[in-house]
Each structure stands twice: as structure tokens, then as C-alpha cells.
């Protein structure tokens, strides 16, 4: 094709020139470290060691039989199984409620529910530590006010700590998912509901089942994947609140990796955990891209 007009032709250096900074940063800080991590996971190299030997899948064999790692994996999965459905349902429910409320009150509630997202979790951890304190915490005070005798140690009880963490994660992230759901809801044309009303869908549940839910599928799937990824990424509250304790009851994947890499300096082990983690994330992302990419275009 012939170029029309001179303003369309750029000097040859322009395109690579514009791309270079971004590409350089991406390769230097993301692609190279990722590849090096994968490489390290196949060696016996640890931080500070001068030489290394290739050990094949030994590191993977080690972590997959290591009870501590398996416990951490199990904790992560349990956390995900609690957090994903609850925050999904909660954020969808809140989005629907706020959408039906509308106007200034809707905006007010939206802001309120979004506030935890904007808060720094490490700072909030201090607050949670105080709120959940078994002796002087506000929860303990409330419980004793209502006559509960037992003192529950929210963050130091092996059987409870995961649920406590799940609660805090849900508390923090629900507002974020809610806002995404709200944008999804906004994209459903009002005429759909009007047509459904005229066709006889009088009750709100019917309209939700036949209009809202199917038209929201792309958003819902996106949120579903996002909640899984975000839950796998949980690190800071564990580091700040429990340090994986008590007795590794709240140790999760990223915290284990951090411990192996930066407390025990077993870089090779940390690298193989990181590689597994990377594979899971990559799989989820590819799945999401695949599904969302080939979905029917629902907008008219």
C-alpha cells in the first residue's frame, strides 16, 4: 500500500526507539529474573555459593515430599476455597444492592466498601492485631459483652487462624471486586430489563437469572480468576500478623517461598517453589484469556 501524505512516514528509528525503554525494563526486571529462577530451580545453588551443579528435578522431588511445603500448599488451597466463593458472592451481592440503590446513597456505600482496598494492609494489620487481641481486643470485648465466656485467640489458634486470615482478606478485597462487578452491571443495557419486564419477568430473581447473570458472565469469570490469583498472592498480612504461625498453621505458599529464600537462604528450594507458583499463575491467566477471548460478544 502506498503511504498517503508525508506525515505518515516516521524515521526508521522511531518504532524501536519508542519500544526500547519498555522492552528493556521488561526483559531486565521480569523475563531475565524469571528465566534465572527457573534455571536455579534445577541446580543446588544457594545464595553466596561460588559454584553449582545441575541436579535435575531433585529440588521438586524434595519440596513435593516435604511435609512443611505440602502443609503450606494445603493452607493456600484451603484459604482459596474459603475466600473465592465468599468474596465472589459478597461482591456480587453488594454490587447488585448498590446498583439498585443508585444515586448518592449508592455512591456513599460504594466508597465505604472500597475504603479497605485503599488502605495499606501492613498498617491495617496493626489495627487488626488490636481488634482481634484475645484480652483487650474489641472482638473479645464484644463477645464477653454478649456473655461468651471462652477467650478465642483469633490469630494464635491453629484451627482458627486460617479463617481469621480469610476474613481479613475478604474484608480487604471485596470492595475491589464489587467495583468491577458494578462496571459489568453498568454495561447491561436498561432496555434488556424493560424488555424482560414486558415479556413477563416480574420478579427480581427471574430478571437476575435470565438477564443479569448470563450477561454478567464475562465479568464473573474474570472476577473468579482474579480472586484465585489474588488469594495465591497473599503475603503481607501473613508476614505482618502471624509469620506463618502458630506451628505453620497459617503458612502459605508465598510465605514459605520467602522463608526458604530469605530466612534459610535455600535459594534453589525457593526457586522451585517460585517456578511452580509461576506455572499455576500462568495457567490461570492463559485459561482466562482463552475463555474471555472466544466468548460471544454480548454487547449489541
Amino acid at each position: 500500500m502506498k503511504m498517503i501524505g508525508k506525515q505518515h512516514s516516521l524515521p526508521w528509528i522511531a518504532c524501536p526507539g519508542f519500544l526500547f525503554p519498555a522492552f528493556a525494563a521488561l526483559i531486565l526486571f521480569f523475563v531475565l529474573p524469571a528465566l534465572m529462577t527457573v534455571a536455579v530451580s534445577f541446580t543446588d545453588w544457594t545464595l553466596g555459593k561460588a559454584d553449582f551443579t545441575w541436579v535435575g528435578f531433585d529440588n521438586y522431588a524434595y519440596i513435593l515430599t516435604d511435609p512443611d511445603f505440602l502443609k503450606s500448599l494445603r493452607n493456600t488451597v484451603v484459604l482459596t476455597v474459603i475466600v473465592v466463593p465468599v468474596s465472589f458472592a459478597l461482591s456480587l451481592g453488594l454490587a447488585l444492592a448498590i446498583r439498585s440503590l443508585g444515586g448518592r446513597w449508592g455512591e456513599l456505600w460504594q466508597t465505604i466498601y472500597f475504603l479497605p482496598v485503599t488502605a495499606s494492609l501492613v498498617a491495617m494489620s496493626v489495627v487488626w492485631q488490636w481488634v482481634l487481641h484475645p484480652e483487650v481486643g474489641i472482638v473479645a470485648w464484644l463477645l464477653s459483652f454478649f456473655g461468651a465466656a471462652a477467650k478465642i485467640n483469633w490469630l494464635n489458634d491453629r484451627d482458627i487462624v486460617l479463617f481469621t486470615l480469610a476474613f481479613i482478606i475478604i474484608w480487604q478485597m471485596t470492595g475491589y471486586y464489587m467495583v468491577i462487578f458494578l462496571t459489568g452491571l453498568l454495561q447491561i443495557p436498561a432496555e434488556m430489563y424493560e424488555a424482560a419486564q414486558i415479556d413477563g419477568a416480574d420478579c427480581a430473581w427471574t430478571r437476575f437469572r435470565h438477564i443479569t447473570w448470563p450477561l454478567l458472565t464475562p465479568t464473573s469469570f474474570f472476577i473468579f480468576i482474579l480472586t484465585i490469583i489474588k488469594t495465591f498472592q497473599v503475603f503481607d498480612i501473613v508476614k505482618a500478623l502471624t509469620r506463618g504461625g502458630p506451628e505453620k498453621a497459617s503458612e502459605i505458599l508465598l510465605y514459605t517461598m520467602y522463608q526458604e529464600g530469605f530466612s534459610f537462604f535455600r535459594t534453589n528450594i525457593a526457586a522451585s517453589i517460585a517456578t511452580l507458583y509461576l506455572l499455576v499463575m500462568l495457567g490461570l491467566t492463559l485459561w482466562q484469556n482463552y475463555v474471555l477471548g472466544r466468548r460471544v460478544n454480548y454487547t449489541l
Partner: protein
Amino acid sequence: MLQLDHITKTYTNVEVLHSLSLTVRSGEFISLLGASGCGKTTLLRIIAGLDSPTSGRVHIGGNDVTDWTPSRRNIAMVFQSYALYPHKTVRENIAFPLRMRAPWTARLPVWGRFTSEGKKLAALIREKVPAMAEALNLGGLLERKPSQLSGGQKQRVALARALVREPSLFLMDEPLSNLDAKLRTEMRREIIALHRSTGKTFVYVTHDQTEAMTMSDRIVLLNKGTIQQIGAPAELYGDPANLFAATFIGSPGISVFPCSVDGDGLCIGSFRMRNEAAWNLAGALGPGQYRLGIRPESCFLCPSGDLDAIPAAVRLVEHMGNERIAHLDIRMADGAVFPACVRVPNDFCIPEKHAWFRPSWRHAFFFDMAGNRIRPAATCRVIPLKKAAI
């Protein structure tokens, strides 16, 4: 059939409908015609029950339905954007109103299929949906999704969805405005045929006078939330109630001139008319200021001056094939220029620059300065009954 009783609608201090009353007969095709923002869609939504009037009552089939839900009113509506359910196939789109009106036991996800109501519903859908699709030329498209259909096909699906059950009333909100010109003419005829074959009452909202004129039994002409005129298409064109109706209907539009009557007869702007017809009209109108409306076919071009001809400049001649339309500029003594339109048959010659514009006085419309129609006694066609009896 449909009766609107002093409908008023106010949106945050802005009154968009001012006490509208209207009676639609059973089986009638009625159009709500008006420019955008005149309140025609709001009125339709009030009839549908999607909006509620600020005051006034809506009656359908003898029932006061003002407080009824849209589905209880048993109306069908076709939206401008079709509003098809994008995730459902054509078959499911058409079946949806049937499904929604079935008893709730028939609609249970899996269990419903095994109930007797569920079987009845399935049989009804099997019977009605393919028949409806056949009637609207959608035969091979039943398994498609709306995104795989053309605009005309979407429109047909929307019609099928509206027609599949037996609604008491059809409401259509500019259903053809998203189609291209050729398809629009075709669909217009199909909708007329549908109206004939179903015999239902249709309320049709449009801003397109051609649609309203060609399809309707009666037209309700709206402007700024008030009814300007209700009447058959021929009535609106041939006997406009006011200046708005006269200027809104007709393409090319009516030419409007200032007109005054004094003791010496009738003037169009600064030109005094000297023929007998104008003199008689002046007597019938009485002295005063008026506005004169002349349709493009109610006037002539003359090559030379006459007793009631006005000098005009030919600005533009449009060839329509079967005729030509001459656009003239008429300059009054005070310098004001008024445009005029004349339909000219092909075998008449149009002067290149200067022509004489001559109204056909029998078909001229007079309005007072507020825009209300004045019917001079001499041209009054309706003889009051009492006088006729004597």
C-alpha cells in the same frame, strides 16, 4: 381499547407531558409523531408501564391499569434497539414471553420439564415459535444468536417476540430507525400487513412523518408535551389544526408568509393581491395580521405577472423524476426574504432566474399570529348542521 386520561409527567421540575388525553379504538393503528424531545417515547413508556405518570390514568380494555406492572398489562413492545437477549438463540428469544407467562413449576431448571405444566409449555413453544418464525421469514435462523443476525433480521425477531403471545396492545418505539432506507420501506409494508392480519391495536412512535403517514389509521401529532392534532393522515395534511401541524407535515414543507388584511384587501408581505378570490378572503378574514401557509402543490409558477402573482427569484430546482421542485426566494419591500416551494410538472417550463409565484387561494391555510388555524367563512367546507337543517 386504550384510553389516556389527563396524563402529566414531570421529571425533576420539568413537565414533559401536559395533561394528555387520548382514546385509541380497538384494532386501530395509531402513530405518535413528533420531533425528538416532544414526549412521544415518554408517553409510550407510560402506556407500557415502564414509567408511571405524575398524574392521570391509563385505561386498557376497560381496566384502570395505571398501577399495574408491565407484564400484567399484557402488552407487547418493540424497542428501537430491538433489545434482543444476546445470550439466547432466536428460538429462545421468541419463546421467552411464553416461558415467562407459564406457571412457575414449568420454569424450574430441570424438574420443570417433567411437570405437566412444563410439558404443556414445551408443546406450546414447539407449536408457536416455528410458526411465528415462518410467518416472519426467520425459518432457518432459529438456532442463531442475535449477534449473527442482520439489522432487518433482528427487527423481525423483535416483532416475532412481540407477536408470539396474544397481547392486547402492540407498542413500537421507532422500530425502523436503525434500518437502512430500502429495508425500512420493506419493513413498513410488513408491519402494515401484520397489523391487517392480526387485527390488534398498534401504538407506533416515530419522528418520521413518512412512516406515520403511510402506516397509520390516525396520527397523534405531539409538540413539547402537548397534542397538536389528532387525525387521519389525510386530515393532518389537508386540514392542519395549527401552524405547527402545517409545517411539521409535508415534504417539501409548506411555505409560510406574513399576511395582512386591511380595508383595501389582502397583502402577502408587501405585495397587494388584486384578484377576486383574495378580495373575498380578505372580507371573510377581517382586518388584522395573519400567517399564510401554501403547500408546494397549491401554487403555480407563472412566466409573467398577474393580479395575484408575486415576483420571486429561482434559487434551486430539484429534479425528482416524476416532477421538479422549485425553491424560490421572495423578497418583501422591507428586505426580508421568505423561501417558497413549488411542485412543477415535468412538461412545464421553469424560468431560469425570475418567476412569478401565484397561490391557489382555495387551498391556502390561514393562521393567526399565535399559530392557530383561522377558517375564513368563505372557504369553510363544513356547514354547521343546524344551519343546514334550516
